[in-house]
C-alpha cells in the first residue's frame, strides 16, 4: 500500500495544477467573448467582398488584373495561420494536418510549395517538417492590425506577381461554434469565381470611373480583409479551443484527486484496522 504522506503530496500538487488550469479556463473564456465579437463584426465585410470578387471573376472585364488570370501551376504558395501559443487542444494539429495533406497532394503532381507562416506554432512545425518558408511572422497581438500582417503577405503576393508562384492558398481555422473549429483551405489568388456564375454567358460591369483603378483597389481590399479575417477568426478559435482544453484538464484533475483520495482513505483505514487487530491480538495473548 502506498505511503499516505506521498499520496498527500501528490494530491497537493494536482490541486495546484487544477487551480492553474481553471484560472486559464476563465481567462480564455473572457478573452473568447471579445475575440468572438471582433470576428463577428468583420465577417459581413469579408463575406460580401468575397461575393463581389467572385462576381468580378465571373465577369469578362475589359481589363484583367494579373490576379485574375489562371496560369499553369508549377509552384504554389500557402499562407498558414496558426496560434502563437499552445495549450489549445488539437487546434493547430488539425490545421497543420489538413494543410500537409493538401501539400502532399500537390507535391505528388510535381508542384513545388512555398510557405508564408503567421503564428509561432506553424513556424515551429515547418522547421521540423521542412518546406520552403518565404516569410514568417509571429507574436501577432490579439487585436491584430492589418499593417502587422501585410508585410509577410506582400512577400507572397510579390512572388505571385513576379511569376514565382502560380496559386496562393489561405489555410486557417474557421470558427463554427465554441466546440467546433474547422480547418479550412481556400484559394486566394487567382480569384475564384463563384459557382452560380460559371454559367458561361458573357457580361461585364459598367465601371465608374475606370476598370483598372477599381479592380486594383477592390483586390487589395479583398486580400487584406481575407487575411485579416483569417487572423481574427484564428484568435477566436484559439481562445475557444483553449477554454475547452483547460476545462477538460480541470475536470481530469478533479477525477484524479478523487481517485487518489479514495486510495489514501483506504490506506489510512487499513492501517487503523491493522493496529486494532494487533492490540486485540496482544490482549488475547496475555
Amino acid at each position, binding site marked *: 500500500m502506498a505511503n499516505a504522506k506521498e499520496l498527500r503530496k501528490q494530491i497537493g500538487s494536482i490541486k495546484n495544477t487544477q487551480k492553474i488550469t481553471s484560472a486559464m479556463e476563465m481567462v480564455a473564456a473572457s478573452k473568447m467573448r471579445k475575440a468572438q465579437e471582433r470576428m463577428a*463584426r*468583420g465577417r*459581413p*465585410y469579408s463575406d*460580401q*467582398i468575397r*461575393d*463581389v470578387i467572385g*462576381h*468580378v471573376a465571373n*465577369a469578362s472585364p475589359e481589363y484583367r488584373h494579373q490576379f485574375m488570370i489562371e496560369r499553369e501551376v508549377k509552384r504554389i504558395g500557402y499562407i498558414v495561420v496558426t496560434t502563437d501559443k499552445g495549450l489549445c487542444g488539437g487546434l493547430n494539429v488539425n490545421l497543420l494536418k489538413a494543410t500537409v495533406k493538401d501539400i502532399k497532394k500537390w507535391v505528388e503532381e510535381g508542384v513545388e510549395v512555398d510557405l508564408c507562416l503567421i503564428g509561432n506554432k506553424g513556424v515551429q512545425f515547418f522547421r521540423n517538417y521542412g518546406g520552403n518558408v518565404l516569410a514568417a511572422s509571429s507574436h501577432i497581438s490579439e487585436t491584430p492590425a492589418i499593417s502587422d500582417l501585410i508585410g509577410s503577405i506582400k512577400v507572397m503576393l510579390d512572388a505571385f506577381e513576379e511569376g514565382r508562384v502560380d496559386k496562393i492558398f489561405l489555410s486557417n481555422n474557421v470558427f463554427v461554434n465554441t466546440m467546433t473549429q474547422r480547418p479550412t483551405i481556400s484559394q486566394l489568388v487567382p480569384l475564384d469565381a463563384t459557382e452560380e456564375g460559371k454559367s458561361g454567358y458573357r*457580361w*461585364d*460591369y*459598367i*465601371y*465608374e*470611373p475606370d*476598370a483598372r*483603378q*477599381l*479592380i486594383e*483597389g*477592390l483586390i487589395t*481590399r479583398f486580400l487584406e*480583409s481575407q487575411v485579416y479575417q483569417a487572423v481574427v477568426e484564428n484568435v477566436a478559435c484559439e481562445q475557444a479551443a483553449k477554454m475547452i482544453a483547460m476545462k477538460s484538464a480541470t475536470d481530469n484533475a478533479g477525477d484524479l484527486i478523487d481517485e487518489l483520495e479514495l486510495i489514501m482513505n483506504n490506506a489510512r483505514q487499513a492501517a487503523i484496522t491493522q493496529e486494532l487487530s494487533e492490540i486485540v491480538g496482544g490482549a488475547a495473548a496475555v
Partner: protein
Amino acid sequence: MAATVLCSIVSAEVEIFSGQVEMVVASGTIGELGILPGHTPLLSGVKPGPVRLILEGGEEELFFASGGYIEVQPTSITILADTALRADDLDEAAALAAQNKAEQELADQKSDVDFARVSSDLQEQAAMLRTIRKYREGKA
C-alpha cells in the same frame, strides 16, 4: 407594390444595413447614383457622402459612408464602405470641430502636415455635415 432589391451596407467593422429596398441613392466617384431594382451590373467607387435608401413602402433611411465601393447586380446591391454610420449616429459638433481643426492645419502652412491626408479629412467632414443637414431637412 414596387419592385425591391436586396441591399446591404457593410463597413470593415460592422454590417450596418441589410434588407429589401426600392431605391438606393449614393454618391459615386463621378456623380450621384440612383439605382433601382434590375439595374445592369455596375462597379463604382463611393465618395464620402450620404447614402439614401428608400425602403419598401416609401420610407427613407439615411446613412453616411466615408468612401469605399459599390457593386450593383440586377438582384443585389452591395456597398463596401470604409466606415459607415447611420445618420442618427452622426455627431454634428464632433464633425464641425474636426472640420475646423483640419482647416486650421491647412491654413497653418508652416506646420509639417500631410496635405493629402488633411484635405481628405476635410472632405470627409464636409460630407458628414452635408449628410446631417440632409437628415434634418428630411425630418423637418
